[in-house]
């Protein structure tokens, strides 16, 4: 049983459960013997961190292997590049294919975190749910050339109770009695523009940062550094909630700077251990009866591909050939608008502004699927790097000079799964352990391009309606949303895992992160990843209880 924390009395002086833990140790919590067949969870982010808490709270011992260190709130930095160097995943990786990221960021296909908490340390907090039809895109969107659409093996109705629990865990504003965050300056521009062009479904959330003290963490102080970890802990992430609570159960053995490098199986094909490298590069073996892979959608397929065996010559759990394929990164595009008056967009909660009016299926717009518009702000350091990589000269400095008078937003929408958009092993590039790096090959589908252009156009109208004197369209940058490379499917031949996230062809192996998403929806993914993890934890506990796993 998990306890409902929403009834706890708020204590504004308390920072978070993590506050009592020492920083950057290699080990926290219980000590589980290497030969004990435990539940082994790879990764401690949205998926893995949630699973660790939900399982240990039910009394099930878990070993959590996390490649990065455990940074504490006091370690987080109010500085964009310093924070990036502190927590981003910078180990060998490559991007390739026709998309612009391959040219601008050949070694950085994704902007994700290598630390306890995973990318929820960086995340900003937007928590919309999927819509019902987004679980059934093959049915609703039809057979689109070049796309590899598939209906999810589960429906919104089945996931709804877990969405409720995920929103309570995260403390989403506007949900379950949680109040909205106030309007910051960037939102004032955004919402006024929205109203002017006829949008109705805008608000400052739902957003995973406290507007008032909740769940033992304080209210937002609007410091504008939630991408950098949020030192105040008003923002939910698994490093300040799920992981410390898992440790407190006495059932969680968290091994930091421990990178899983192979998942092995027994003669019968059941998963039986995880091999991992510690900080010093020494290889260890942890016996396992269940392995949950939650390394985010680039590392999870990489790990399975590195786990090829005689039984699984193309990579573990890859009988379908779908491991690594159907990589999605969400539409992504940003728009920065300049005004005659000051905005100071960087003050306050970065993404506490969401417009849902375009998040619908209406092909009269010229594309299938939908998108959200969300406020976005970068400091000058990141804006310079991301606003239009390679741009220089007066066209560039015009954008930078207007910084104080600039408002920004992000376009986040559903991109279509394509078989050829794919994570593979790049044996020409090795990581610090000599292991093949992941390569991400990506090309926009024509539908993605049409949707992005529609989004740019709507953003221009919105900002012009409140007096913008100039707008700049920022192209997609390294992916913050990485999805779909080990997708769920009803039939084993269509995907990697079943309706519970258990691999179709490897008993005891679960996919527990964003890579299980059959399609991406328009919504930011973390709420869905957390809901799926809570649901999966229930299934695993039930099956362990019955002796079925």
């Amino acid at each position, binding site marked *: 049983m998990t306890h409902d924390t929403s009834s706890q009395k708020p204590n504004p002086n308390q920072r978070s459960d993590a506050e009592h833990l020492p920083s950057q140790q290699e080990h926290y919590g219980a000590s589980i013997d290497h030969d004990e067949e435990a539940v082994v969870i790879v990764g401690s982010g949205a998926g893995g961190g949630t699973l660790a808490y939900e399982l240990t709270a039910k009394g099930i011992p878990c070993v959590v292997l996390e490649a990065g260190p455990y940074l504490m709130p006091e370690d987080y930095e*109010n500085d*964009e*590049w310093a924070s990036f160097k502190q927590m981003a995943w910078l180990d060998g990786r490559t991007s390739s294919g026709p998309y612009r990221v391959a040219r601008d960021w050949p070694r950085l296909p994704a902007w994700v975190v290598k630390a306890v908490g995973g990318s929820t340390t960086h995340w900003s907090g937007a928590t919309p749910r999927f*819509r*019902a*039809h987004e679980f059934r895109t093959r*049915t*609703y969107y*039809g057979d689109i050339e070049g796309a590899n659409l598939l209906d999810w093996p589960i429906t919104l109705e089945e996931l709804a109770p877990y969405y409720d629990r995920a929103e309570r865990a995260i403390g989403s504003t*506007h949900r379950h009695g949680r109040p*909205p965050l*106030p*309007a*910051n*300056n960037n*939102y*004032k*521009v955004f*919402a*006024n523009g929205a*109203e002017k062009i006829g949008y*109705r*479904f*805008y*608000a400052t*959330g739902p957003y995973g940062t406290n507007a008032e003290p909740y769940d033992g963490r304080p209210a*937002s*102080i*609007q*410091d*504008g*550094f939630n991408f950098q970890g949020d*030192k105040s802990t008003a923002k939910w992430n698994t490093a300040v909630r799920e992981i410390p609570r898992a440790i407190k159960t006495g059932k969680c053995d968290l091994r930091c700077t421990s990178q899983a490098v192979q998942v092995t199986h027994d003669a019968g094909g059941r998963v039986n251990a995880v091999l991992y490298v510690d900080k010093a590069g020494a290889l260890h073996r942890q016996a396992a009866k269940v392995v949950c892979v939650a390394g985010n959608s680039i590392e999870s397929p990489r790990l399975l591909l590195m786990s090829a065996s005689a039984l699984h010559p193309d990579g573990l759990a890859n009988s379908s050939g779908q491991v690594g394929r159907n990589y999605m990164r969400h539409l992504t595009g940003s728009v920065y608008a300049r005004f005659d008056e*000051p*905005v*100071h967009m*960087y*003050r*306050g909660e970065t993404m506490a502004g969401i417009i*849902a*009016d375009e*998040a*619908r*299926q*209406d*092909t009269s717009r010229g594309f299938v699927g939908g998108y959200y518009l969300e406020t976005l702000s970068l*400091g*000058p*350091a990141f804006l*310079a*790097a991301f606003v239009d990589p*390679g741009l*220089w*000269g*007066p066209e560039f*400095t015009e954008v*930078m*000079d207007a*910084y*104080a008078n600039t408002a920004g937003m992000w376009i986040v929408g559903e991109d279509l799964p394509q078989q050829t958009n794919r994570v593979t092993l790049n044996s020409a590039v090795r990581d610090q352990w000599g292991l093949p790096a992941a390569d991400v090959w990506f090309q926009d589908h024509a539908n993605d391009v049409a949707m992005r252009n529609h989004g740019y156009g709507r953003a221009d109208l919105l900002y012009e309606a409140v007096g913008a004197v100039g707008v700049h369209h920022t192209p997609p940058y390294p992916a913050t949303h990485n999805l779909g490379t080990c997708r769920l499917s009803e039939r084993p031949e269509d995907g990697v895992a079943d309706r519970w996230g258990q691999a179709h062809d490897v008993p005891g192996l679960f996919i527990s992160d964003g890579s299980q998403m059959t399609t991406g929806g328009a919504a930011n993914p973390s709420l869905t990843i957390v809901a799926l993890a809570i649901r999966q934890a229930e299934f695993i506990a039930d099956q362990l209880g019955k002796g079925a796993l």
Partner: protein
Amino acid sequence: MPDPTPAPIDADSRRNLVRLLRVAYPHPRFPDGPYERTADAIIGQVDDSLWQRLVLSEGLTSLDARATADGQDSFVDLDDETALGLLRKLEDSEFFRFIRSVAVVTLYDDAEVHQLLGYEGPSFEQGGYLHRGFDDLDWLPNPRIEEYHGPEHLIEVAPDDEPTHASTQA
């Protein structure tokens, strides 16, 4: 064995680099300090790489040769427009790309530049912006922050996009 080290970046070359940065990233409001710091960061980066040292030192010296072709004694004597035009021709060179890659992450990662652009930097220690202007924009009305509860409904699937039986079977 002869020493293959190219000549260190001398004062003239550094002067060219500072000038180049100002032309490539023109901010009339900025004093020389940020450009000089960025130039030094670029020069500091080449210490570990013979290739980058060769590229940078040759590139900076040859700017003067290009300027002579334009009828001036040296690169720093060119007016802004001529200098910009010269750089545009070098845009795709290894030399210019290297400078750009360091400059864009250095020039704007500078406390003085932040101040000049109107960005206030670290804020947590000062209690965030909760009482320091996170909502001080006053040239627009205060918008609604709650979700919409009016008479309109968001239509998740347009009527024409409801799947027909036929397409469900397809």
